[in-house]
């Protein structure tokens, strides 16, 4: 039954977000845990991006081109939207060139 499937998806997903938020209300004192939680976003986003970004598009070449442009623009501290859209554009152009070259 599809509604039960959706209900399970929604409930489990909500619980993993909600429980830590509601249970932990105090500021953590431990330097180790504070540092650990400080690094979590970078570790999570890093591992979500690589290697997934290299297989996100229909060609590895276009993915590499898009990745290089995104890294360069992010390094220049461009906005999230600028970085995201520029890498899309570069992927699109690269795949267009690849098709012209019949690769």
């Amino acid at each position, binding site marked *: 039954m599809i509604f*039960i499937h959706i209900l399970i*998806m929604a409930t489990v*997903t909500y619980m*993993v*977000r909600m*429980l830590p938020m509601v249970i932990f209300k105090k500021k953590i004192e431990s330097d180790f845990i504070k540092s650990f*939680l400080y690094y979590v976003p*970078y570790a999570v986003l890093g591992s979500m991006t690589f290697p997934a970004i290299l297989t996100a598009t229909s060609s590895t070449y276009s993915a590499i081109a898009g990745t290089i442009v995104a890294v360069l623009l992010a390094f220049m501290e461009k906005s999230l939207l600028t970085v995201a859209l520029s890498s899309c554009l570069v992927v699109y152009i690269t795949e267009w060139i690849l098709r012209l070259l019949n690769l």
Partner: protein
Amino acid sequence: MDTDNISNSFISGIKDGIPIGLGYLSVSFTFGIMAVNSGLPVWIAVLISMTNLTSAGQFAGISLINAGAPYIEMALAQLVINLRYSLMSLSLTQKTDKSFSTLHRLILSFGITDEVFAVASGKPHDIDTKYMYGLITVPYWGWAMGTLLGAAAGSILPESVSSAMNIAIYGMFLAIIIPPAKKSRSVLCVIILSVTISFILHYTPYLNRLSEGFVIIICALAASGLGALFFPVKEVAE
């Protein structure tokens, strides 16, 4: 940087949420297309997006629905894929101010996504509930609208365009993590470590059978743990 009372407001939350919402349009658009192509009605695709608000979990969810997977398998898959949100929620509790009552926590925790978390935790100061409500508003509706448009447009979109749009979310992640990595050698080390572990887990035989959710959790625990061990941060969350 803005002062506390300017950036801690609903409007500044909305502003910070706009790029996230636009990024979500493209990802949820893809989700909408995939859901409809797999045989689900448009409104079911939108219902899933409005009640789940999670990319990886939803993509896995529709394939489990179509496979007629047992309920327990669905529950376990969602738990593993989305367990990283627990780490994010826990991390965010250290950045919330006094306005976060239990009721606000019950509501706002629904909107914690990778990008919302990244932006909120990137703020130089504690955040209040008004800011957080602002921050999740545009991404939430962007996610729902993108799903609706993708599901309705179906396969109209040429493959070349949807292929290009798939990289958007990763471009955004890079834009979030690279600027801080320029300024902090320890952040850079944690990122390199996490990415290295991720490559190893994806390309080593046997290990590459781990689910995506587990890979993220292992990378987060190992890289952040080693980071905290070798580069303790004194001034965090002050």
